[in-house]
């Protein structure tokens, strides 16, 4: 049987999968993995900020993650050779966030819950916000997909068609910050970018078009959520790592055929 908190975790997980599946495809296509990491790590800083100023954690996380996403976007625009700057930003946000939380007076906080996710963490009022955020992300991606895809295929093709690829990048930065904010409690800051990338990568061999890959990634993310939360329910495993482990198993399964073909030697 499912307890109330477990039901809430499942409902939150469905929402997270709905947004992370399609967005993860864009993260993969545009090689934004580092981008996802930095944005997710900034969430811990947001938690610290929220506790300092006694505002909602979701608002604090949304603020710092959005700030980080915009900062990384601006840096990426500057061109190549920014790996060092991104590495510094990404890990500094995480470290400073953890240090800041340790300084908070009178707060006994389960840090592990924010780093790896916690099925107990999702309160009834969180659920509505998580679903609202997830729907916003999914609808935004679906609505803008023609220009997002064009800019992803080639910025110059987008420019020539009268689109501005910088605006599309901004939309992705915004949706990324939203996904980080809604998945923090369930998946944890350290594994959010895995939640984006692994279902999308698992969907790749199954798809022939961007839309079918986004749909497959969504379904795989749903299965991963079911598997991970099931394990949390029955074996008391941590939520985030359980979900990502399930996603990794699915990744292995979908890539098995390709791997076997590689062993047998190339065939048409």
């Amino acid at each position, binding site marked *: 049987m499912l307890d109330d908190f477990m039901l809430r975790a499942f409902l939150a997980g469905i929402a997270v999968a709905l947004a992370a599946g399609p967005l993860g495809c864009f993260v*993969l*296509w*545009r*090689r934004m993995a580092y981008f996802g990491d930095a944005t997710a790590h900034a969430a811990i800083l947001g938690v610290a900020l929220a506790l300092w100023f006694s505002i909602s954690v979701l608002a604090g996380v949304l603020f710092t993650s959005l700030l980080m996403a915009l900062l990384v976007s601006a840096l990426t625009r500057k061109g190549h050779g920014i790996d060092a700057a991104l590495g510094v930003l990404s890990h500094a946000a995480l470290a400073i966030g953890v240090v800041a939380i340790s300084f908070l007076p009178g707060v006994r906080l389960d840090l592990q819950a924010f780093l790896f996710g916690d099925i107990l963490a999702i309160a009834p009022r969180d659920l509505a916000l998580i679903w609202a955020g997830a729907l916003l992300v999914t609808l935004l991606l679906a609505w803008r997909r*023609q*220009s997002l*895809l*064009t800019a*992803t*295929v*080639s*910025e*110059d*093709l*987008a*420019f*020539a*068609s*009268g*689109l501005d690829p910088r605006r599309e990048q901004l939309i992705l930065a915004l949706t990324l910050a939203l996904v980080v904010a809604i998945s923090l409690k369930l998946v944890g800051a350290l594994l959010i970018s895995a939640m984006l990338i692994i279902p*999308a*990568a698992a969907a*790749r061999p199954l*798809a*022939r*078009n*961007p839309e*079918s*890959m986004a749909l497959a990634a969504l379904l795989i993310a749903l299965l991963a959520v079911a598997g991970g939360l099931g394990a949390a329910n029955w074996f008391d495993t941590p939520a985030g790592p359980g979900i990502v482990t399930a996603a990794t198993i699915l990744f292995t399964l979908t890539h098995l055929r390709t791997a076997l073909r590689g062993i047998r030697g190339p065939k048409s």
Partner: protein
Amino acid sequence: MKALVRIEGLTVTLGGREVLRDVSFEIRPGEIVTVIGPNGSGKTTLLRALIGAVRPKAGHIRRAPGLRIGYVPQRLQLDATMPLTVARFLSLPVRHGAREIAAMLARVGIPGLEARQIAELSGGQFQRALLARALLANPRLLILDEPTQALDQPGIAGFYRLIEDIRREIGCAVLMVSHDLHVVMASSDRVICLNTHVCCEGTPAAVLEAPQYRALFGDGTGGLMALYRHHHDHSHDEVTGREGETDAR
């Protein structure tokens, strides 16, 4: 008729380096204009400024109101993680019907490739798919950046013949960058010789005679006129896009 695009005193710097300096010219409806010049002379930057991808430091680019541009980039590196069929690619960013796509693929010489993955196309097929996508926008100006890099000699001749035919059919102007001097000379109405600034400009014959052109490309081009005339009456049919081309690099 008025110019489709008028460029006035265009100067572009990239990373502090002056790539284009005081470039001025215009493109009129229906003409084929070719930009030639040595490597690093600013050819690609000029085209990218025209589509709005590069901001000028000085000068103006005036487009005719509502000008539709079809753009064929020099190369396009599609990430291997992105699945994309030819038909889906042709529907970015504007959707087109299946019949329209099929007809356009047939027109550019790669019929029936709708369901093929972009990554599985040969260099020549991909070039034609890019052209098909550009043409679906019903452009009044077609811009091509070294469109024949992945093709061999007969493939190059065939591609330029296709461009000439399409220009005649839909009446669009064509602006292209090319290294294939002898073939290009045959099909262009006007040649612009670029080396950061415009060295010389005019009909192919006039440019070939210009001392600035000879200074840039040397005297080895003396027999060029004879060479391209020879090429021009030499006909290959490479409609399938399979024969007469090398693989993409």
